[in-house]
């Protein structure tokens, strides 16, 4: 057991727990995106940042990867944290405005607009699908590729994967494409929950702009039936 201060309150946590887990246990809300129960923490989206330390030396760290340690002083809603979080969510909005998850996060923080060049990415690079595939589906068909602006998720050589089991786990956990496959007939499709204006998989080369590795796609088959 370790004990530390969370927003001025003394809290205790199992050693090995993260700051995020402790905060959740005590009911302190911290927004998250790339974090997901059952998957290893990734620290990719930076949304869960909290301030650790005092005064000048205070640092912003991601709560989902920060281990709970004796004597920490954590603030989850300081001015600095709020301002940085709003900026992060604004950037997420700028790259992936169609994601319902991002929209909800932004709305909850009172961010209704973003000031950057609007893009329409299909992927937030949160890595959930990669970890899902590897850690829960025991498959490991997809991974990160490239770097910087070219970073993306795909199968090796962008080829149809011979280890993918078509379980759909990757699509299920994706905050950008959650239930978004509307095939080419949004009216009849089972999903479309995210109200994409244009179904992303129609008119694209396979795997190009969509993150769907299932071929044939289970959802489309149901929709088409």
């Amino acid at each position, binding site marked *: 057991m370790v004990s530390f201060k969370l927003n001025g309150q003394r809290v205790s946590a199992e050693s090995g727990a993260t700051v995020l887990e402790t905060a959740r246990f005590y009911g302190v809300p911290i927004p998250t995106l790339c974090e997901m129960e059952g998957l290893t923490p990734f620290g990719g989206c930076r949304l869960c940042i909290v301030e650790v330390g005092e005064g000048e030396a205070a640092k912003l760290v991601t709560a989902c990867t920060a281990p709970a340690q004796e004597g920490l002083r954590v603030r989850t809603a300081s001015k600095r944290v709020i301002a940085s979080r709003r900026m992060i969510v604004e950037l997420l909005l700028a790259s992936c405005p169609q994601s319902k998850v991002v929209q909800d996060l932004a709305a909850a923080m009172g961010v209704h607009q973003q000031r950057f060049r609007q893009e329409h990415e299909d992927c937030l690079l949160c890595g959930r699908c990669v970890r899902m595939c590897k850690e829960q589906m025991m498959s*490991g*068909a*997809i*991974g*990160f*590729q*490239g*770097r*910087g602006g*070219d970073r993306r998720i795909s*199968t*090796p*050589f962008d080829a149809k994967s011979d280890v993918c089991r078509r379980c759909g786990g990757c699509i299920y956990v994706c905050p950008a494409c959650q239930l978004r496959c509307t095939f080419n007939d949004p009216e009849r499709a089972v999903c479309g929950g995210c109200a994409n204006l244009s179904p992303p998989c129609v008119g694209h080369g396979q795997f190009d702009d969509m993150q769907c590795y299932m071929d044939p796609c289970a959802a489309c088959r149901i929709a088409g039936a």
Partner: protein
Amino acid sequence: MNTAEIQGIVAKHQGHPGEVLSILEDLQSRFSYLPEEALRFVAEKTGRPLRDLYGVATFYKMFSFRPRGKHLVSVCLGTACHVRRATLVAEEFEQKLAVKPGETTPDKQITLETVNCVGACALGPIVVVDGHYFPNVKRTTVQKILERTRNEGPRDDPNKDPRIFPVEVRCPRCNHTLMDPENPLEGHPSVRVTISFGANHGCLRLSSLYGSFTIACDFETPPDAVVHFFCPYCHAELLGATSCMECAAPMVPMVIEGGGIVQICSRYGCKGHLLDL
């Protein structure tokens, strides 16, 4: 595809830390690209998932999935070069060669690629052709670089290559020149320093061509050993305040004739270097 050859490359590095990068590097230099079958083979032999190998191979710009041409032209688009309009230089190359970055001209002569910082920011925009640095490249110099490249022999031929710039260096403490015209390396006076490693002391001569890593040494030094550098005249140790960005060994500073400092890594075999003009 020569399976035995790939097998040999894998066997050479297998079990060492960082084996993946070494294997990929060797494959790249052997085939001038990473063939898909080779990567699948490596995945099978090393037990690493193909998705990770592919991730690593796409992360580093030095790897390519298509065969490269005889010459490799790398335009730096790192931050420092970018703000000096390296994008215009890259565009000019694209137009002149009629290929996009990552592509090779149809005659298989020149491959164009863009890279992110080659460590000579002060001289940007930088273009590296077959390992040699062209400083301060402008739109207008592109044509010249291409003409020279086309007329040159294949890459890795620094001797016949008038394009690289030789530097003259001095000891930062006593200001004595370190150049040794008596014992040239690659046709230029070499840089002579004294080194010590363990109980060994001796003379080390370095090529004075910036971008060349040719050296001549009195005794055998194990790879990766960090050696101490001394001025052969005032015997002061050449020891910089910074450490190598690649391997964290101390850097060895030398003053460049005409202003500036060049720093090289003190680790034997490490190619880390810094140029400050």
